[in-house]
């Protein structure tokens, strides 16, 4: 990168730009614990410059300079994903968007909030609650995930089953194109809004959004102990009832056993799966919800209702998923967008896989739509034991393959899921996405290397061969371990 440009931007932004190695190294990773030996030979994750623009005009100016000088730009806010979505792989500029923060306007009668893209979901929820409103949905990483960031991902999380994807809740966005041009996008604009949903920072920088909100209502929480064979049926039944839940979260039996061992789940939950069901609405709605649960309890389901305090606690702890990692210290896994009808088939096959590789697989997830759930299947590892850790990384592909067998696909793409691009999109979808990229970012400066195609060394064939070899070694090593 031209040192002149670095100096120019440093001078312009003052203490909001840095090329310090101490600082920029923290912008070269997200949550993914991928060892340096796998990353560094393939990618340049070191930013030449990290900048923190304060408003849309500065974002536009930085992008214009980058565009004119062919400098890659990687936007970043919460950086709470695991696929390197917000990690540069070709150096260049990392644009930290966390200063684009705050509420611009609340239209109470129109039930619409205009918010800057770097605001976190928890910050927006707190603001809205104070005004008698609430978010329709939010990610399970709400304390750190930004409004703009989640929009640029797939945008399914807590509340989506009732209120749909984030895309369906956003009326308009302000977008800075890679060439620095500022655009207002709606569903009817020249560049339609839906281009940006799921674009993962590859088409421009979203700086502001108009989001539909709901009235703040009361909630009622239920926690069900479910026998494993009935998990799919119970989840399907609840989400298909006339009173649509706000959220359904489930954990398999092994997850509960591990969390019990770690001191986070009571003994009474260890012999079953759990399904947490959360409703929101009017008093009548909550009565209807109560009736749904009561009817189910008297039906032929293998299910037991936990105490209210446990259900409330489950909701309160909805952002504490990483407590599982205390069993690690490292945790690997695959997140799968899976048809609910196949949840049991998936979990059964995961069990088979576990027998084969003795990984101690645990699964949990939430219902995202009437048809789909997002399921995380995870296992422990120790990143200090590099060889064993690399071998275990191959198991992530096995998990995705099982998901694919049951109609699933990876949730999110970034860099690390590009080898699965064929699982995620069919050829016409992929052609359409690539055409959009070419239209909006013909120079390819925005978050290069993500989403559209795997880098050469990660192409599907190479990836498959490498992962299968690693898996075979892992299995052999695992057998050896068992013999010991």
């Amino acid at each position, binding site marked *: 990168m031209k040192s002149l440009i670095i100096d120019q931007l440093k001078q312009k932004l003052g203490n*909001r730009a*840095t090329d*310090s190695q*101490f*600082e920029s190294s*923290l*912008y070269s*990773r*997200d*949550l993914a614990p991928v060892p340096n030996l796998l990353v560094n030979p393939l990618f340049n994750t070191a930013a030449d410059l990290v900048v*923190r623009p304060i408003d849309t005009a500065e974002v536009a100016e930085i992008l214009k300079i980058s565009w004119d000088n062919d400098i890659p730009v990687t936007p970043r806010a*919460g*950086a*709470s994903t695991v696929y390197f979505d917000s990690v540069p792989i070709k150096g260049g500029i990392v644009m*930290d968007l*966390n*200063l684009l923060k705050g509420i611009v306007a609340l239209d109470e009668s129109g039930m619409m909030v205009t918010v800057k893209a770097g605001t*976190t979901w*928890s*910050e927006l929820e707190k603001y809205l609650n*104070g005004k008698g409103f609430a978010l329709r949905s939010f990610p399970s*990483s709400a*304390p*750190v995930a930004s409004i703009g960031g989640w929009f640029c991902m797939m945008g399914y999380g807590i509340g989506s089953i009732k209120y749909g994807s984030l895309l369906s809740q956003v009326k308009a966005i302000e977008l800075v194109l890679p060439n620095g041009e500022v655009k207002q996008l709606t569903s009817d604009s020249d560049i339609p809004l839906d281009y940006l949903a799921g674009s993962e920072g590859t088409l421009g920088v979203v700086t502001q959004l108009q989001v539909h909100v709901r009235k703040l209502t009361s909630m009622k929480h239920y926690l069900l102990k479910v026998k494993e064979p009935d998990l799919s049926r119970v989840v399907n039944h609840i989400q298909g009832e006339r009173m649509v839940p706000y959220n359904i979260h489930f954990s398999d039996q092994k997850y509960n056993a591990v969390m019990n061992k770690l*001191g*986070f789940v009571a003994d009474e939950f260890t012999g079953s799966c759990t399904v947490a069901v959360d409703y929101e609405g009017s008093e009548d709605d909550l009565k209807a919800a109560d009736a749904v649960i009561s009817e189910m309890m008297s039906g032929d389901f293998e299910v037991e209702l936990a105490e209210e305090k446990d259900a409330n606690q489950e909701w309160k702890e909805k*952002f*504490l*998923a*990483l*407590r599982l*990692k*205390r069993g*690690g*210290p*490292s*945790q690997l896994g695959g997140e799968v967008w899976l048809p609910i009808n196949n949840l049991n088939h998936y979990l059964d096959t995961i069990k088979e896989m576990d027998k084969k590789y003795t990984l101690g697989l645990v699964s949990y997830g939430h219902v995202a739509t009437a048809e789909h759930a997002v399921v995380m299947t995870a296992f422990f590892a120790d*990143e*200090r034991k590099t060889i064993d850790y690399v071998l275990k990384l191959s198991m992530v592909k096995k998990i995705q393959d099982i998901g694919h067998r049951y109609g699933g696909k990876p949730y999110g793409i970034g860099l690390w899921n590009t080898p699965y691009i064929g699982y995620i999109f069919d050829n016409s979808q992929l052609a359409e996405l690539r055409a959009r990229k070419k239209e909006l970012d013909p120079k390819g400066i925005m978050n290069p290397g993500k989403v559209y195609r795997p880098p050469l060394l990660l192409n599907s064939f190479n990836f498959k061969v490498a992962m299968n070899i690693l898996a075979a070694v892992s299995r052999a090593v695992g057998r050896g371990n068992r013999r010991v």
Partner: protein
Amino acid sequence: MSEDKSLFTTLEEEALICGRCGSCRSDCPVYNVIGWESSAPRGKISKAKDIFSKGKQVEISDEFIERIAQCTLCGACSSVCSAGIDTRNLWLAIRKRIADEGRAPEAYKKLRDTLLQNRNISSFSNDDRLEWAEDLDDEPEGLELKAGAEVCYFVGCVSSFYPQAAQVPITIVEILMKADVDFTTMGGEEWCCGYPLLSAGFVDDRKPFIEHNVAKIKELDIHTLIASCATCYHFWKHDCSPELEGYDLEILHATEYLARLIEEGRIELNELDEVVTYHDPCDLGRNSGVYDAPRSIINSIPGVQFIEMGHSRADSLCCGGGGNLQSVDPDLAAKISDLRVKEIKETGASIIVSACQQCEQMLSAGVRNAGLPIRVMDISELILEAMD
């Protein structure tokens, strides 16, 4: 899971457990001022992992030491950590490693020298501990070292030696006298509680301080100790357990004891026509779980309209004055305080009350700099005003 139980294991393990999710970031007052990842808890832990957790410890950089010192130990990151990491203990463990290597910031080293020499954080002789009592209208009998007193008031270094905080012990003593409480203080035998040494990383040096204070309490046959300093209270409550094992000592913050006196009818409160908001000191609220006593006191004063700030109780914002931050980066401490002052302003309160002399100092400066017509008071001062 018990909310009070720390899951802390070792620095090395906890740094590995951190998943860099960043839930800690938005609540961190230091990150909210500085804004760079290296100032956020997850950034610091990420660096700590590289240094300490990968087998052989690598060199600790000056930048890392600076960032570790830029922390108020407010505990906000602990309370939201999605992996259940007791980050407050983690920061203390890192500071200890830095101090063990002789790399502690110069300000910490000076603080340590002062403490080891004077037994308090000031440049004054420890014999002057009760100098503030000269401003009392009537000095009570037994103010110093009265054996068998019902209550011993642990004054704390800041209130004992810094004139701007001297009003706190004066007020507390006047209230105790009016309520006919049989009380005493440790006078010149009160040594610093030891927290400043712990928080600077000189963990072993705090031990003689604890041993001395506990020995004096036992010698005086004291069974109820009250502290008006939130940090002294937290330290007595959480860090002196081994030395106090087997000895019956009730440790209360002044707000808990004063609330009890009000409930028992030993303090009578008159009407005050004021709008009051309350700032939870981190070491009293989030780190010790005392939220209700101060609110109960404020709400028991007739005529007072109490308004909570945008962030309160466990969610409260730090004043910027904790964790020895002022000694290494006073400018950062002041900017953190400004964030809290902004929230105070939004309440429209005429009085901001707290229960920690350090918070009150920080907020007084912040309110003054912002030119706000708001009185900053210790909760004891509010009580005394309502008693007069």
